[in-house]
């Protein structure tokens, strides 16, 4: 990674350090908040990464997360087990992935339309089924106890809690998250490793750049792309399950609230790379956390209205994008079905 490539990372870490120096307590809360907020973004972003690196564009991340949130919450409520909920979340999201694969791989349809359709489908089906099953207008009943993923205290967290610097970071931030947060973060090096160090990753990247090269090497383009789309489904499933059973305690209609699109933005921001995805989603989480902590910025002469603090993460994104990130070139075969014979 050269300087320009790691700019997001430097920026993000810079903000964190500056913040920690200026107001340690606030920074700890804010960064913790950023970690939680970024987790679904990160998972969805990596989901998009697998799919798009294989040449299948996916604007249905939002819908898949929503469906997963719903199925996860429903099953977790019915069975009382967050783990079964997670499985159901993955299942729900995978079902939509399958539709996306069918449309964009098997039937060589328009990937964008398919994604739009999936978003609509999830938005309608979740409430429709939810209302039918629970009669709460699309909400699921609140989850309690084992129906939710609780925070995990990492070994040694208590011991080092009072050590300066290490304490707040290890005990305050790293420890005490739900298991799915750790899964999400572990997915970053895993994704990097899979992508750049394994046969599967090599083929996956190849099929997104030039499917004909993969085909003439005797590998099935269709199977590779389906696998990628399925992985995207699984990751979106975890993201949705985390929203419903980790961060909150149940499903509320439209609860993804546009996070799938933010994840998409982060993916482009990260130029389809795993480490950069980590930092891009962290940046989004951080900006939101900052806006949360300082809702009415009093600049002395004027008080910045809350609407603008709400919009601040989006404004900053545009500025950072225009100022530092530069051109993002998607995988060359992205968005195009692989058509051999016309």
């Amino acid at each position: 990674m050269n300087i320009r490539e790691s700019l997001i990372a430097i920026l993000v870490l810079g903000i964190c350090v500056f913040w920690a120096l200026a107001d340690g307590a606030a920074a700890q809360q804010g960064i913790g908040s950023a970690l939680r907020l970024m987790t679904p973004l990160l998972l969805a972003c990596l989901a998009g990464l697998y799919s798009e690196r294989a040449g299948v564009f996916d604007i249905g991340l939002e819908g898949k997360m929503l469906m997963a949130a719903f199925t996860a919450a429903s099953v977790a409520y019915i069975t009382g087990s967050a783990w079964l909920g997670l499985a159901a979340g993955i299942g729900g999201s995978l079902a939509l992935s399958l539709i996306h694969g069918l449309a964009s791989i098997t039937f060589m349809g328009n990937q964008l339309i398919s994604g739009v359709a999936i978003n609509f489908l999830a938005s309608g089906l979740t409430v429709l089924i939810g209302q039918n099953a629970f009669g709460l207008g699309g909400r699921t009943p609140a989850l309690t106890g084992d129906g939710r993923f609780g925070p995990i205290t990492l070994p040694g967290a208590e011991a080092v809690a009072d050590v300066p610097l290490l304490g707040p970071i290890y005990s305050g931030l790293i420890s005490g998250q739900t298991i799915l947060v750790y899964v999400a973060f572990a997915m970053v090096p895993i994704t990097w490793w899979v992508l750049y160090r394994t046969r599967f990753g090599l083929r996956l990247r190849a099929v997104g750049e030039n499917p004909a090269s993969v085909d003439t090497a005797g590998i099935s383009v269709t199977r590779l792309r389906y696998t990628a789309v399925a992985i995207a489904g699984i990751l979106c499933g975890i993201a949705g399950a985390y929203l419903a059973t980790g961060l909150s305690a149940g499903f509320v209609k439209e609860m993804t609230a546009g996070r799938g699109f933010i994840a998409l933005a982060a993916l482009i921001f990260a130029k389809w790379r795993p480490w950069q995805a980590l930092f891009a989603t962290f940046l989004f989480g951080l900006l939101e956390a900052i806006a949360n902590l300082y809702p009415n910025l009093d600049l002395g002469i004027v008080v910045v209205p809350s609407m603008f603090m709400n919009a601040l993460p989006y404004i900053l994104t545009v500025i950072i994008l225009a100022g530092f990130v530069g051109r993002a070139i998607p995988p060359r075969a992205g968005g195009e079905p692989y058509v051999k014979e016309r």
Partner: protein
Amino acid sequence: MGGRPAAAAPAAIELRGISKAFGAVQANRDINLTVPKGTIHGIIGENGAGKSTLMSILYGFYKPDAGEILVGGRAITIADSQTAIRAGIGMVFQHFKLVQNFTVLENVILGVEDGALLRPSLSKARGVLKQLAADYQLSVDPDETVENLSVGHQQRVEILKALYRQADILILDEPTGVLTPAEADHLFRILEGLKAEGKTIILITHKLREIMEITDNVSVMRRGEMVASVKTSETSPEQLAELMVGRKVLLNVDKTPARPQAPVLEVRDLTMRDAEGVERLRGISLDIRAGEILGIAGVSGNGQTQLLEILGGYPEKGAKVGGDVRMNGAPLPLSGSGCDAGQRRRDGVGHIPEDRQVEGLIMDFTAWENVAFGWHDAPEFNKGWLMDNDAIRRDAQAKMERFDVRPRDCHLAARNFSGGNQQKIVVAREIERNPDLLLIGQPTRGVDIGAIEFIHKQIVALRDAGKAILLVSVELDEILALSDRVAVMFDGRIMGERLPGQTTTGELGLLMAGITDTDHTPAEAGIPPEVAHDLPQGRA
């Protein structure tokens, strides 16, 4: 050139009754072909005759509708490329199947990795590649990204891919279309080496000279059918050309000496640095007079593209251009406003770009829309606010008529024409504008001989009409046949100018490698040693 007789041994490849239709197009019809083991077999045919399709079937890329394939005497069903690879078939496609942002190594191992992890495969491949490089003089930097390689080297990668897969039968689809003579020559020596090892080679090309030079047998295709298969030693270029096109073809350009007049283009000390700060042009000076063709020879990537782009009015983004360029005495702006391709056209510059599919045509546009491409501002194509589509269509139809573009349907999308016919559309569009100065890049790359003959005639006719022509080509034959003067470019400089009648390909080849009379070692400025030692030795 005698291949060992293969009388008793089963043929390496035997195709029986292969047919393939794409929708309503019958690309191959009932094709039979026998390729004896240990021979080099040439296949020729017009653009769109079905050569690539036939070979892709053999390689398992397409599935045939009917027919049988025998490899080494055994009938096998080649369901996908994996089967073909396992049967010992390797193919270098006409349009390379490389992953541009992968390294050479990654491209080589793709599909034949040794395990789930890359590292062992990569190190093994590195070793094998080193061996192959030594055995066949096929050296490429294994860690270089493919998009940074010249086309010639990309092709090496394709060949290395096939060899790495231990192919016994190697198919090469128009391999020399993108090579310099030196590179082509080098390739042929490799092919002969492979043949000596007992490997079988199928070579598709449009260049009869290559067929005559290297193949043992040659088959001719026309409109999806196999019309002849003959021993190379028993045929002649003229006969092959006739078999291919179905009529007699003039193989040499028929032109009278030039009668140059006043200078049209004067270039003085043209320099250019690209966005990364790399110096691409280092003080180019040249003149072109009305009624003459200045040919620029050179290995691609030595600044020809930049020269054409600057003269065409669109230097690449972020480039710094210096120097003085005048056309008919008036200065041409080299940057800022006034330096744009539209203005150049109004100033009387026509341009046949090097890459017809990326620049010269919009592949999704119809032929008639492409006929207005670049000239969409022209008054005769416009009626007030609107474009006069009827006028454009009439014009397109007429041009297609005169240039014998086939099929003669101006409503067809450009991508549905074969490469030769696509090129004819571009040539027709630019030549018929009757420009004072015509810039031409690689006019006949991948075009069949029938079309080459035609395009060459048009270029000469324009010259005879008193226009100035700048011709850039990596085909030395083409340069020598068409140009009135030849300049050789190397590393952003003009190495020297020669008259075609008074030079040889050998001399030009040396210049192309950056070696002047006074300086007989390869110039230091970045010429890869293998190119230097690949130089053709006195093939006049």
